[in-house]
């Protein structure tokens, strides 16, 4: 089935997730969709699969305009999406997951569908036990289940969102074979990914997106440099000058292994000295937050040791990390960082580090006012934090950190900020660096990574490469993020 997206616009408030995207995909092709996080590809695919309705624009299937009101309806019309985290029901069995939502009549015929399931699965050499619980399956198997479910419902356009993030190499091979089979059957496959090598090897056509727009369309083969340029959209920039020696080691990671339900980082060793700035690069879901949380004491590594300022902190609770001089700034400004419903003054009082019984509101208000001035926050001491703009919220978060910290751990410190605000934030951060603080930060902004870090840790599927900033440039960084050099 031919898929056409014409001038799709989708806005979330002032954010233009999709800003006039036009795309067409021929049947029987494996089409790759490349782009950074925030480029707009997930939004676009959500529009195509019926999760979101476009604010403007048209979708045409085989030349006919269609309007999806729900994901279930898009499946009926032949478009199905396989999410990165499959939308299944872990507490139910495989056979029930296969059946749930199918338009079959009243009574369930598990018997017949068991054989249907096994048949479909064997077509692609998938091995699925109909009576197993989905919570016992690996991500790869859950993916396979979801795929055959969609195929069983008759989809002819299959969208895969970052499918190879958390599956084994073996499962990946099976997946690719299955995809080729589907193409052979005349179906259309859209492969959304950030892994350059995979997309190069697999897809016949590639569309690249950045900042909500399509920045390039090409037919494979295509040189990596061109792809990287289309993805990150900037000319080659060189890294900064090599810095001189730093102070004593503040953070030492020794063979740290940590994992969550999706992937794991194995045996990472790292030494960070006073005054150093380390950037964590890589697409989302590659493991950066795991390592950062280990450094903050929020996650326990399953192996390895961690030392802060020569003190062994392995296994100690988060409190101890805070007392030792670590500060952690999470991504979600309002979800995890600031407390909606409380004012700046209240926040100032809350983080008072030598609290007596009573709150000294005058002092708190004065502190809040002082911080507002120093950090240039547009607000008053009695402003509720949810009323501040994003940039000001970020400044507020920084302002609330105690002044003398050994280690500053930040997730996306300048996300969603305009250039000026970001610049200002970094000025404040560099002040602290000069006083001896070490900073580890996660970012998806390559310019920021190249400009600010002394070293960059590139994460890819749980593996880590350490780059010296002064020896690398935008192209190399972009390629690394896309997977180059990780085999």
């Amino acid at each position, binding site marked *: 089935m031919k898929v056409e997206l014409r001038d799709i616009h989708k806005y979330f408030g002032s954010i233009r997730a999709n800003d006039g995207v036009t795309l067409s995909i021929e049947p029987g092709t494996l089409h790759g969709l490349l782009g950074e996080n925030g480029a707009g590809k997930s939004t676009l695919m959500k529009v195509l699969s019926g999760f979101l309705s476009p604010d403007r624009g048209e979708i045409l299937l085989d030349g006919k305009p269609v309007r999806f009101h729900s994901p279930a309806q898009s499946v009926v019309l032949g478009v199905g999406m396989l999410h990165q985290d499959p939308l299944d029901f872990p507490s139910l069995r495989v056979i029930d997951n296969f059946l749930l939502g199918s338009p079959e009549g009243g009574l369930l015929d598990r018997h017949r569908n068991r054989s249907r399931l096994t048949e479909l699965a064997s077509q692609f050499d998938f091995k699925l036990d109909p009576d197993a619980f989905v919570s016992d399956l690996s991500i790869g198997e859950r993916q396979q289940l979801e795929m055959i479910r969609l195929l069983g419902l008759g989809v002819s356009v299959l969208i895969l969102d970052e499918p190879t993030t958390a599956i084994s190499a073996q499962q990946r091979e099976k997946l690719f074979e299955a995809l080729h089979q589907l193409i052979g059957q005349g179906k259309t496959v859209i492969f959304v990914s950030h892994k350059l090598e995979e997309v190069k090897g697999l897809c016949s056509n590639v569309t690249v997106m950045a900042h909500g727009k399509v920045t390039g369309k090409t037919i494979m083969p295509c040189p990596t440099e061109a792809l990287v340029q289309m993805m990150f959209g900037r000319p080659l920039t060189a890294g900064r000058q090599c810095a001189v020696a730093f102070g004593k080691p503040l953070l030492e990671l020794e063979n740290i292994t940590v994992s969550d339900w999706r992937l794991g980082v194995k045996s990472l060793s790292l030494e960070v000295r006073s005054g150093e700035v380390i950037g964590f690069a890589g697409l989302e879901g590659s493991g950066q937050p795991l390592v950062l949380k280990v450094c903050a004491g929020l996650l326990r590594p399953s192996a390895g040791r961690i030392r802060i300022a020569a003190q062994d902190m392995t296994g100690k609770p*988060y*409190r101890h990390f*805070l007392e030792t001089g670590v500060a*952690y700034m*999470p991504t979600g400004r309002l*979800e*995890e*960082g*600031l*407390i*909606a*419903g*409380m004012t700046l003054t*209240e926040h100032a*009082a*809350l*983080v*008072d580090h030598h*609290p*007596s*019984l*009573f*709150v000294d*509101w005058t002092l708190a208000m004065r502190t809040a006012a002082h911080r507002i001035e120093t950090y240039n926050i547009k607000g008053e001491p009695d402003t509720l934090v949810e009323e501040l703009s994003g940039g000001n919220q970020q400044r507020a978060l920084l302002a609330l950190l105690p002044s003398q910290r050994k280690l500053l751990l930040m997730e996306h410190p300048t996300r969603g900020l305009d250039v000026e605000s970001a610049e200002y934030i970094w000025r404040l951060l560099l002040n602290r660096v000069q006083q001896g603080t070490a900073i580890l930060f996660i970012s998806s902004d390559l310019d920021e990574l190249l400009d600010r870090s002394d070293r960059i840790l590139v994460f890819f599927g749980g593996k880590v490469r350490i780059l010296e900033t002064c020896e690398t440039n935008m192209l190399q960084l972009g390629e690394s993020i896309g997977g180059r050099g990780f085999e």
Partner: protein
Amino acid sequence: MNNWAIQARPLPRIIAILSALVFSAFILLILGTSPLDAVALILSGAFGSSTKLAYVMTAWVPVLFCSAGLLVTFAAGLWNIGIEGQIIMGALFATGLMQTLQDSLQPGAVLILAAFAGLMGGACWGMLAGALRLYGNVNEIFGGLGLNFIAGSLTVYLVLGPWKRPGIGSTSGTQPFPSSLWLPAFKGFQVSPIEVLLGLMAMVFVGWALRGTHFGLQLKAIGKNLRAAFLKGIPVYQRMFLAFGLCGALAGLAGWVLVVGTSARHNLFPLISSGYGFLAILVVLLANLSALWSVPISFFFAAISMGSLQLALQRQLDSSLGGVIQGMLVLSILVTKGLQSRLLSGHGK
């Protein structure tokens, strides 16, 4: 539970109150009574004489204590349904201490020690509920309910067993304490200024603690965003546990008042908590978690409860009509609050 402090403008509140009253009037009409008649009876039942007013204030005090305690737990986003059991345990501990020491110490000392005993009893029971919720993962509603029932069973056991009245042994309670162990009152007005004062002080204390101490501020942070509070280094579980304990302590004091108050029955009997704890939950919900508003609203609810007893006496109407009015008020506020915020979010964003 985190968005209770939506500022409801006066008009919706008035509509809510009116609809509650209209509904109650409707019920009365079905039952064949004139609503005006019922209102008159309730008013006279509550304020008709100085004795009746004293009874209203006697009912008011335990609700004051409990509301104060609940403000603490609600600040932290916790539902302390176990408050009834905490009242009972407070009364139980107070009675126990008084029985043990009544012959060895001055009455004044006994009363003061009994207050502490009641406080401790309620606090322990509260912390038990907290432990079940925080460390045992037991849903706080069921943990609280179960503990309520256990406290009730314990009372029954004591009243009919080790603490039973000599000879009789009935569920009317333990041997009543002599008047030397009652809280003193002025002649002709059957409620002790001490209990009223203590109740108001409890509310003032809680109101101030929530606004003026770091503990209170931390509880507020926990109630609004547990994760963020944790990341800021607040020991969240410990604080929530303490909140349970503090609420329990105040409920325990309510239990103490229920035993030694001037117009109390002066003994321990099953169901001594009389639903005051749950009534306090309604009060606090209606007061929108404001300490200031909780004071008049608890008085108002106590008046309704006492006043509606008249209905049973004079008109063969069940005294639970008071409960109907109270319940309808809170329900209407919930509904109007909801309508308000939905309509606002519909237009605004």
